[in-house]
């Protein structure tokens, strides 16, 4: 189980991005972390995976514990070895290398050859499309295939927790559905998933629990059903409007700035 408690992250020693964020990812569940641009979703991911250093960021308060062990400040390679892997925002596949070579980098921390072969077969089972393109240069794959490759690469380390940062970014609705089904598949075989998304509909449709974050902290959390029923979530994350749906709405009526979210007091 991953537990983040009261986490504060500061970039360049001045910019406070996370202000006391607390989330939990219980074993075997899919947890969605939703939020608008700049809420601090990616920073949360970086804090978990140990990549804050690269961006001159540091955890100043709070704790991140993974199965009871504090992991804040550990090296990315140690964190991957402990069973947390991530799919970075924007896929970040190694475009100049082949599909197979990309997958090899994902299994870098696994020394056991039989285990590597087993996870490779598993990835090929999850993504038959990648099997057809094993020796192709990753840069020439389509966006959806690259996303699959990025997820497959992360799965090569046989993670216990998979953290996905905006897997739906820039994909067609059909592909988003496909990726969503794959995430469910991965979860069913025992990997917990932390899904960081802007696409609230997609994330909440598969999540066991959801968090909504704004300006560096959690403003609301609960079961997907509860979140989906909330008026503010409906309006700001799903683009729906409360009230009479039969009546046509004019853009003039949608005055976001007039409507205050109940959580921003």
């Amino acid at each position: 189980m991953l537990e983040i408690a009261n986490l504060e992250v500061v970039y360049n020693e001045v910019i406070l991005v996370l202000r006391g964020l607390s989330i939990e990812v219980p074993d075997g569940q899919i947890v969605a972390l939703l939020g608008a641009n700049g809420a601090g979703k990616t920073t949360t991911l970086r804090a978990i995976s140990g990549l804050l250093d690269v961006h001159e960021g540091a955890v100043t308060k709070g704790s991140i514990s993974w199965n009871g062990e504090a992991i804040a400040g550990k090296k990315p390679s140690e964190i991957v070895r402990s069973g947390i892997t991530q799919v970075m925002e924007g896929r970040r596949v190694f475009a100049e290398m082949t599909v197979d070579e990309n997958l090899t980098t994902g299994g870098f921390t696994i020394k056991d050859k039989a285990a590597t072969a087993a996870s490779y077969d598993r990835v090929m089972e999850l993504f038959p499309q990648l099997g057809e393109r094993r020796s192709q240069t990753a840069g020439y794959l389509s966006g959806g295939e690259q996303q699959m490759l990025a997820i497959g690469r992360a799965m090569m380390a046989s993670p216990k927790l998979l953290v996905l940062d905006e897997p739906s970014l820039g994909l067609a609705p059909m592909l988003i559905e496909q990726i969503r089904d794959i995430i469910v598949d991965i979860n069913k075989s025992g990997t917990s998933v932390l899904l960081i998304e802007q696409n609230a509909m997609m994330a909440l449709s598969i999540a066991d629990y959801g968090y909504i974050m704004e300006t560096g902290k959690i403003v609301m959390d609960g079961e997907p059903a509860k979140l989906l029923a909330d008026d503010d979530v409906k309006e700001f994350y799903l683009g729906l409007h409360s009230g009479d749906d039969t009546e046509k709405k004019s853009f003039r009526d949608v005055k976001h700035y007039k409507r205050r979210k109940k959580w921003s007091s």
Partner: protein
Amino acid sequence: MIRLDRDNVPLLFLIGALIPTTIFLVIQAVNDPALFLETLIKALGLGAVYALIALGFVLIFKATQTVNFAQGALAAAGALFVSFLVADEHIPFTTVPNPLINIGPEWLGWGLSVLVALIFAALLGLIIERITIRPMVGEPLFSVAVITLGLEIVLRVFNNDTVKTEFRALEIPWGNGGTTVGGAFINYSVIAALITAVVAFVGVFFFYRSKTGIAMRAVAFDQEAAMAQGINVGRVFAIAWAAGAVLAAIGGIFATQPPVKQTGAVEPETANIAFRALPAVILGGLDSATGALLGGLIVGLAEIFAGQYAAGESDWLGAGYPVIVPYIVMIIGLLVRPYGLFGTPEIRRV
């Protein structure tokens, strides 16, 4: 089909220059086959030395995205280590006698000593990387390149101070010896350089397909994404620098031998081999091992053939003109292909 417009001027110029050159060389080859063969072998030997040095540049560039300007000083340092071990017969920087030199026949003791020298070169590479390059991870690449330039100067001063005006021989077992094939004299050093280059390139070819090699390419392409896969970037840098320093040292040893130099000894000038090989690296493409091999051979051929067959014109060309031929080849090559013959034009999907 090549269109006749401004973009293709360098290419047309290249073709225009190559056709008469080829005809000229064919005539020469028919007139005096022995001389032609001798020149060709010599050229391939020089090309192999350039290719070895170029491969060191490529290894370090591919992992760290930095052109290592200290490669020349590392080459000289490697040759110096050999000289310490086989001529002075003691372990570098100490007065402890080198126990290996007396093992078995002369060539065995010498060979083992060279291996030890290469280990010293690798250590030097590791120390340099740990102290000066690792703390610069994530800093602007230009700063890192300037640091390597500073290292080159520091190491050179150090090397020159050690060499002074002494004759620092490498005591290569075969000396200046060679064999004669079809009237052409072939130096054993040239053969050794060719064999070493082949071994090094085959080794690197397989290395880049191994797990560590793939990790190295991943780090070169996207450091953060590589870290996210659990790749230890620091270790990859260390491996690249150690390997780069070893290749530099090998290049440095050959740089004291024919066809580069006839003396067989380390001189302050030995460090210049890297700058002489630089056109090969740039021409081949900084991130391509194949490019390093081909660039090295092309530059080596151009330099030796120009030196051999244009010598009659040296009253207006000047005596040292062969040395600048690689640079001319490089400039023409870059005009045709700005990222080098085998350099990767970026593939990136947005």
